[in-house]
């Protein structure tokens, strides 16, 4: 496999459930070794997109490729290259955790027993417990173990932490970093869809914000935080003439001003400075704030 082949390539993907269009003309590329975030509100089309990658749905228009392969034509080869944690985890209720992992391992060419043992201990899971009596958090933990142990080149996570308590969420993300990313650098690619953006902030290299099936913004995470700034100024008296059309959003309250800049932050700062503010400060927007600012503007 050529290393320059994208891990995921989606081109002009469209999918509708009857008349309800879920994904409209979506394109994105995930390079190998990257952690890519797909951010959107509930019902934005994230899960539909992922299902097309997994060949659980067939694209109605456009195409998807996983390491250059068409999941519809090369289902087995694609499934070998990726593992998946769905938003709703279901296991056979009569099986124990041990039996479930053995059953899932039987479909895999490779299964790292040491990683499995480490994660069972880290999560404090009892291998003898029946999956029917697992909590939602524990079910997700078992699904993550099953996704990490085959050591695939691509890990697809669909809303993995929604509905989990904060401790379980933390442990989940730490396990993704520690256990999954521990593999060969540049060979472990992650695609994660979530609306709980702040938890994944440190992990995300690049992201696409998707709204009503359309990609509205795709950016490198570091670059996004550099570009999107919140600027606050306070003046001794309300400034009269101030051209702030370059700002994405402006909030005013008497002598105080709060701007959201999408690029051009330095120019806006310089303009505000000319009016001798009593106070002037700036900070970057987090990815979650960028998400909110993008969908609300």
């Amino acid at each position, binding site marked *: 496999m050529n290393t320059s082949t994208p891990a995921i390539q989606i081109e002009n993907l469209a999918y509708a459930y009857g008349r309800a269009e879920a994904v409209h003309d979506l394109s994105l590329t995930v390079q190998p070794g990257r952690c890519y975030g797909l951010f959107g509100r509930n019902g934005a089309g994230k899960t539909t997109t992922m299902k097309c990658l997994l060949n659980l749905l067939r694209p109605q228009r456009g195409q998807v490729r996983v390491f250059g392969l068409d999941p519809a034509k090369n289902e087995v080869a694609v499934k070998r290259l990726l593992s998946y944690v769905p938003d709703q985890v279901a296991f056979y209720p009569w099986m124990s955790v041990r039996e479930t992992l053995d059953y899932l391992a039987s479909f895999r060419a490779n299964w790292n027993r040491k990683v499995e043992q480490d994660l069972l201990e880290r999560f404090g899971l009892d291998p003898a417990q029946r999956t029917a009596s697992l909590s939602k958090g524990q079910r997700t933990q078992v699904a993550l173990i099953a996704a990490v142990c085959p050591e695939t080149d691509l890990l697809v996570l669909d809303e993995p932490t929604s509905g989990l308590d904060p401790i379980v969420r933390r442990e989940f993300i730490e396990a993704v970093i*520690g256990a999954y990313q*521990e593999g060969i*650098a540049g060979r472990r690619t992650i695609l994660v869809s979530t609306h709980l953006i702040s938890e994944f902030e440190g*992990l995300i*290299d690049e992201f696409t914000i998707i709204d009503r099936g359309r990609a509205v913004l795709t950016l490198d995470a570091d670059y996004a*935080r*550099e570009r999107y700034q919140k600027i606050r100024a306070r003046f001794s008296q309300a400034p009269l003439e101030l051209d702030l059309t370059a700002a994405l959003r402006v909030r005013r309250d008497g002598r105080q001003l709060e701007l959201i800049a999408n690029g051009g932050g330095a120019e806006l700062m*310089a303009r505000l400075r000319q009016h001798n503010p009593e106070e002037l400060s700036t900070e*970057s927007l*987090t990815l979650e704030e960028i998400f909110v600012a993008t969908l609300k503007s």
Partner: protein
Amino acid sequence: MLFLISFKSGTPIYLQIVEQVKAAAASGALRAGEALPSIRPLAEELRVNRNTVAKAYSELEGLGVIETLPGRGCFLKENHSALRKGVRRELLTVEIDRAIVQAHHLQVPREEFLELIQERLDALDDKRRAHEGDEKED
């Protein structure tokens, strides 16, 4: 050493790690020969991408600040600048120019700016002395 990462600073995460190691080395909080945390536990603790920490460490290695001993980890190097004096001056000039521009905008006059630099150098010396004091007590 303990890191503090902020997503609101506008500085890329890997650069924040690089700068914090450099600052710790300059102030003596991290001494030559002392170990840095390994990549995996640090990435987990900060909950940042493992590649981000790896990138920071390889940058620090390239700058000659740390060295990696195979199988043992990363350590702060003695006398760490691998760059020629001319290059070092050039790099510093960029940073000083940036501060000068900022001083101009904040209407800090030359004398006060120079005083402030003296003051900050003294503060760093004090910190370093304090860390050396700790070392003797060890």
